[in-house]
Structures are given as C-alpha cells and as structure tokens.
C-alpha cells in the first residue's frame, strides 16, 4: 500500500501512545518514501516502551520532519526515493510489522545491489538530523565503569591495549572492596541525578547487592527467560523452512510475557530485556556477549549518565546445538577466554560512550576485578600514561571524575 493512503484507523493495533503519535503526525508519514517510512514506524510502534531519551529523540525527529520545506524534503529524501522496492515489499503489512519489513528490505537491498545507495542515504539523513536537531547534552558528565576478569586468578594477557592511548593505566591499585566501592559510587550518582533509567548496573553473572536506585539487569536473573527462549529457538530450528531470517522474524514477534518477563511491573525494562535476549546474537549462550551487548544497547537507547558493567565467565565453547539446548547441568566455564572477551567489551563500551553527547566531559574506568590493574580515561586524565604508584579505588575515582 502506498504511504499516501495511510488512514488513522490503520494504527489501531499500535499501543496507545504510539497510536496517538502516529495519528498526530499522519500528514508527514503519508509523504515519506516507503524505503524510509517503515524504519521510522519500527521506532514509533515501540514508543510506549521506549526510554525517555529515545522518546525525546523521536519527538524531536517528528517535529523536525513537520518543519521541513518542500525544498528541504528533496534534499533529505531524494536518495531514498531512488531506492527500488519489490512488489512483495510494497504489498507487505509494513504498518503493523515494520520491523519485519525492515528485515526483508535489508535482504532486498543486498540482493539488488542497492545496499550502498541506501547506506549513503541513511548516513546523510542521520547527519542532517544531527545538525538540525542536535541531541540534548547530559545533565551531568557521563561515567562508564567496566569490571573484567571475574574468576581469573592470574593472567599475562595484555589488558586494555586499545584503551591505553586514551588514558592512564594504573598497575598498583588495591583491589580491596573494589566492587562495593564502585557500586556505591554509582548509587551516589544516581541519587544526585535521579533521572529515570539514567543509572545502570549490568552483571554478566550473579548480581552483587546494589542500591535500588540503580536499574539492574543480570545474566543470572534472566536465566528462566533465557531457557524459555532457547526452547523456542530449538523448536524453530526443527520447523520446516527454518533459517536465520525466519528465526529473526519469530524472535521479533515475541512479547515479554512469552518469556515470563515483566513480573517486576516495569514494561519498559521487561521489553528491553526481551530485546536483549531475542534480538542479540549470542546473548542467550555466552554471558560475555550478553554483558557487552546489554551495555551497548543501554548506551544506544537509554543514554545513561552512569553505567557499571561487570563481566563474568562464560561457558566454554561446545557445539552450537548443545549450547542452544536447555540443560540443567552446570556448563564448564572459560575464565581466560572470558577475560579476552571482556577486554574487547570494555573497549566497545568506551567507544559507544564516545558516541553519546557530552563525550568530551565523559569519564571511563575499567578494572581487572580482584587485581591491581585498572585504566582511567577522562578530561582530567593524562593520555597514554602509566602509573605504578600505590593507590586504591576511591582515589582512582577521585582522580578520574
């Protein structure tokens, strides 16, 4: 169906706030090219379950679209208009299944060699939007803390190599009480800036006791949901016509209740947890992948002021079919490999924080749990330096933030 034929009642299946937003912006939605519109609807349909930062960004994007002149419109969407869609895509129910449409669009773009054109159009759109509606600055400087190496008694792996040029490496940090000090520091920030969903604690294993002002998700707490999901994935793998694309479609149609999520009464958080497990590749089987992806998605979506990520050992690699099967046996762990995974995860967490507003004022700390090595990055920290002087976690935080 062409976008120009959109009617308010076609959004009746949307959650209430999303429906209201769609109807209010119907004029703009009707003139967007079909190579673009479902990507916007994919965000819009989730509006009721989005974090405040995402809602704000979507509101501002729609407001901007409403202000564009006819001339602007040609510049902003000319390249999207050039994308050729297939008849099956045009007939697809992109109003009610925008995420599935975008999946199929992606496949179509690759097959028809239009991926590079689309990528260019999308990048230019993002750049224009960024310039027209600059993202809001954070109310306080951001801080990310990454804790790696749980369960590793000794390692000669050269940690934080990618981060070292950007900050100071400390080799003589007292590990005494380190985790509690860091969690307390995060909680204090949360109380000082009590914005909703702004302060997070992600644990790749069993979460440590934490202040309830922090939003917490952990791999262990999600174990029942993971097992339910694995059972569904297993069932899907046995279904006729199975394939990764079909699997993604099935995963995208899941609701929190399907995995018994949402019992804490926070539909926004339970939807987020669902997406981490159902849309993240490998998050169901490797705790290190879960922690890295959860941190990345928290940064991308919630844009936190404070993020503390603690990696835990993942299971050792086994045949994928075994890892995807629900098992009551405790799997053998791979602490050394997990340290390497977490080291890269720390780098990605810093990189993703740098993509958020306020990057120049943001701080970052990574620590080898239970050991003396840490790295700090921030506006007050000299780059590419090494300190061998004795210090402790509190002092390190004072120097860094």
């Amino acid at each position, binding site marked *: 169906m062409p976008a120009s034929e959109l009617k308010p009642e076609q959004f009746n299946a949307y959650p209430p706030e999303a429906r209201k937003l769609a109807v209010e912006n119907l004029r703009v939605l009707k003139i967007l090219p079909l190579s673009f519109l479902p*990507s*916007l609807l*994919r*965000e819009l349909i989730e509006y009721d379950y989005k974090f405040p930062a995402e809602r704000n960004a979507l509101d501002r994007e729609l407001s901007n679209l409403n202000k564009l002149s006819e001339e602007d419109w040609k510049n902003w969407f000319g390249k999207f208009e050039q994308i050729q869609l297939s008849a099956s895509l045009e007939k697809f129910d992109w109003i009610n299944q925008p995420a599935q449409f975008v999946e199929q669009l*992606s496949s179509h773009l*690759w*097959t*028809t*060699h239009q*991926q*590079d054109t689309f*990528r260019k159009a*999308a*990048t230019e*759109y*993002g*750049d224009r*939007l*960024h310039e027209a509606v600059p993202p809001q600055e954070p109310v306080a400087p951001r801080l990310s803390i990454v804790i790696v190496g749980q369960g590793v008694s000794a390692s000669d792996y050269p940690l934080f190599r*990618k981060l070292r040029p950007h900050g100071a490496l400390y080799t003589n940090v007292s590990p005494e009480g380190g985790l509690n000090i860091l969690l307390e520091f995060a909680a204090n920030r949360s109380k000082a800036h009590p914005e909703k969903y702004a302060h997070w604690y992600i644990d790749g294993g069993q979460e440590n006791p934490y202040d309830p002002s922090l939003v917490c998700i952990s791999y262990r707490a999600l174990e029942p949901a993971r097992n339910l999901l694995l059972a569904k994935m297993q069932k*899907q*793998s046995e279904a006729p016509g*199975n*394939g*990764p694309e*079909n*699997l993604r479609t099935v995963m995208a149609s899941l609701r929190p209740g399907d995995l018994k999520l949402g019992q804490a009464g926070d539909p926004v958080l339970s939807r987020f947890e669902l997406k981490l497990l159902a849309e*993240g*590749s*490998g*998050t169901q*089987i*490797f705790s*290190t*992948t879960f922690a*890295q*992806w959860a941190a990345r998605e928290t*940064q*991308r979506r919630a844009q936190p002021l404070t993020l503390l990520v603690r990696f835990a050992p*993942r299971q050792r*690699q*086994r*045949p*994928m*079919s*075994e890892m*995807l099967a629900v098992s009551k046996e405790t799997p053998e762990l791979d602490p*050394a*490999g997990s*340290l*390497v*995974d977490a*080291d*890269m995860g720390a*780098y*990605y967490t810093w*990189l*993703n924080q740098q*993509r*958020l507003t306020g990057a120049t004022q943001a701080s970052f700390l990574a620590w080898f749990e239970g050991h003396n090595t840490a790295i700090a990055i921030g506006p007050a920290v000299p780059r590419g330096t090494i300190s061998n002087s004795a210090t402790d976690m509190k002092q390190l935080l004072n120097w860094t933030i």
Partner: protein
Amino acid sequence: MGRFSPDIVDHRLSWNRREFLRDAAGLALGSGLFSSSLWARSGVPQKERKVVVITFGGGARDQETFAPEGQENIPNLMRELIPQSSFFTQVVNRGILGHYVATASLATGVYETINNFASLPPESPTVFEYFRKDLKRPPSDAWVVAPSNGFNRIGESSHRLYGAGQGARVILPKHLLSSATKGNPDYDRLLRDNYETPFFAPTVAGNEFELEQMRSLLKLSVDDFKTHALTLSSPDELSVYIVRRLMKQAAPSLLWITMHDIDIAHAGAYSLYVDGIRRTDRLCLEVWRAIQSEPEYAGKTTLFILPDFGRDSDEDSAGNGFQHHRTGDAMSRTTWMMALGPGIREGVVYDRALDSTDLVPTIGSIMGFSAAQSQGSLIKELL
C-alpha cells in the same frame, strides 16, 4: 547511535595498507608487470599447473590479521608465507556479504544474488565448470572441501550451458564425520557450527561425497577416519585432514578449500574469533607445506589465500564491530589476498584495488581456460 547511525565516525581505512605490511615483513612495493610470461618464469606448462584456493573464512578483519596489532594472530602467514608471496592489500567484495553467496561469487567471478541460506547452486558458471569443460578434465580433477551442508551446491552452477555433472566434486567433512560417528559425543568439537547454522541445516542431497567413496577414493576406512578425527580440535582441522588425504590420493588440479571456524564471531566472543584466526593461520601453512611435500603438487602449484570478506569496523555504530558483517562498510568489504607458487614474484606488495571477482579469470589464465562469463579482470601482476 540512532536508527541510521548518524554518529558514524569517519570509517575510512585509516591504515596505509601497503605501508603497514611493508614495514612488518620487509616486503617490496610491487609496481609494473613482468616482462616475461608466467610460463617462462615458472617453467611449468599450463596443462601441468595446479591451483589451490583457500578462503580464509569466514570473514576476518585487518585489525585481527595484517594490521600491526593483528599480526600476532597470524605468525605463520607473516613469517612463512608472506615472504614467498605476492600480496594484494585491497581486495574489495562488492557483493552480498553472506558466506555462501560470497564464496559462490568468488568461485564464479560474478556477484551472485542467490539466497545465502537456501540450498541453491550458483547461477553463473563456476571456475570448476570452466576448467573441466575447456580443458576436458574428468570429475576427479576438481574438488571443493567445505565446512557445512550449506555449501553442498557450490561445485556446479544452474547455468544452462554448464551445470549437472560438469563441476567439482564436493566433500563436506563434517557431514562425513557425522555419518560415521552417529552422535558419539567424543566428536562434538569437530561438528561445531557457527551461531546461525543450527537454524539452517539443509539435507545434503545430490552428488555429495559419501563414506563408501571415502573408502574407495581416499583410501580411508571409517575406523581410521574416526581414529584420526579424535586427534583434531575443530571443523577446519578436519577439512585440512581431508584435503591432505585428497591431495595424496586424487591429486586434483583444481582444489578449493573453504575455512569457516572464524565465523564463530557471530556469537560475540572475541577470544573465540581470534582463536579461529590463529587456527586458520596455522592450517594455511599446513596446506602450503603439503603442497611442497607432495610430488604431484611441488613446483607446479599456485596457492591463493583470501578471506571471503571482512567484518564490520569498530568505528561504524550501525554494527557491533567484529561480531557481524552487516553494515557493508569499507572494512567489511575490503580484505587481502596472497598468491604463492612458481613464477609468482615473492615478497612483493601490490596496493591497487582488486575485485573479488578477479580471482576466477586469473585462475583461468594460469591454467589455460576461459572464464567467459566472469565479471572480473585479470590480475596481470600474477601472469
């Protein structure tokens, strides 16, 4: 980090791809062409030449391979193979970045558009079909050793002028082992799949290589196969074991080996991805040494090693770094290739951009057949 990644950091390939290699391996910059032909330089007539292709897969980035911080992962390529090779620093894959379809594109010299997850043959003629038809070679002279059931149709195309019975024989070592061991958990590590494969396990059908043929052609009993497999640690090691057996017993002139251990990266564990690269590095040297030690191959074989494509760069916020190859950014499209063998200039780096599709017509020129429908161009530096 928005929907269309507005904060994409400049993702240009920041390395001077020529310089980092030259510095590391003491290589010379290649320029110009040979004044004599490959035949004159190598002394090997076309009809006696053999070609082995290894796809360094699935999907490896510069920063874990030839960039300075990645070179520790490929000690064998760096120390043993690069000094003997002509090295091309920019091989660009402009097609679909899925492993089966990209490998099919490499093997046809045409950017294939078949569904990556469907059990379909390539649509354009494969290098194996050109080779066999033009040179009137028997089926036993062209082989593919591939990791998973999804590659079982790679040997011959659906093209009306070629196709059924005119391409390469395909061996799927994991499929063989699975048939031979029937669920014995001792072999599970060799049957590992990447993250996506459990959801794509097409039934192998067609002219696939079965256990009985393993006995008759490779002179390998099921018991010996199983016994040796216990000493191996990964599916790619199993593939190379079969390759060595194939070289010894059948000595095909055109042999294509598709590695795949690296693709565990999709599960997001960086350490496993790097382990896969290190293993593949070791296996490449093992194949090269086998080429040197087998009388049927020594002194007359050209070896090509190249990834099917890269993986997403860390700098592109639309992706998640090494984990996938979905953004289509420059890092995921740009890889490298090395060529080794008689008549190939040694220790030389070429910095001009090649296309992935250039491989097939170049093999054709080396072996003396025409890849008439390939979209690629000859790599003249090798001819």
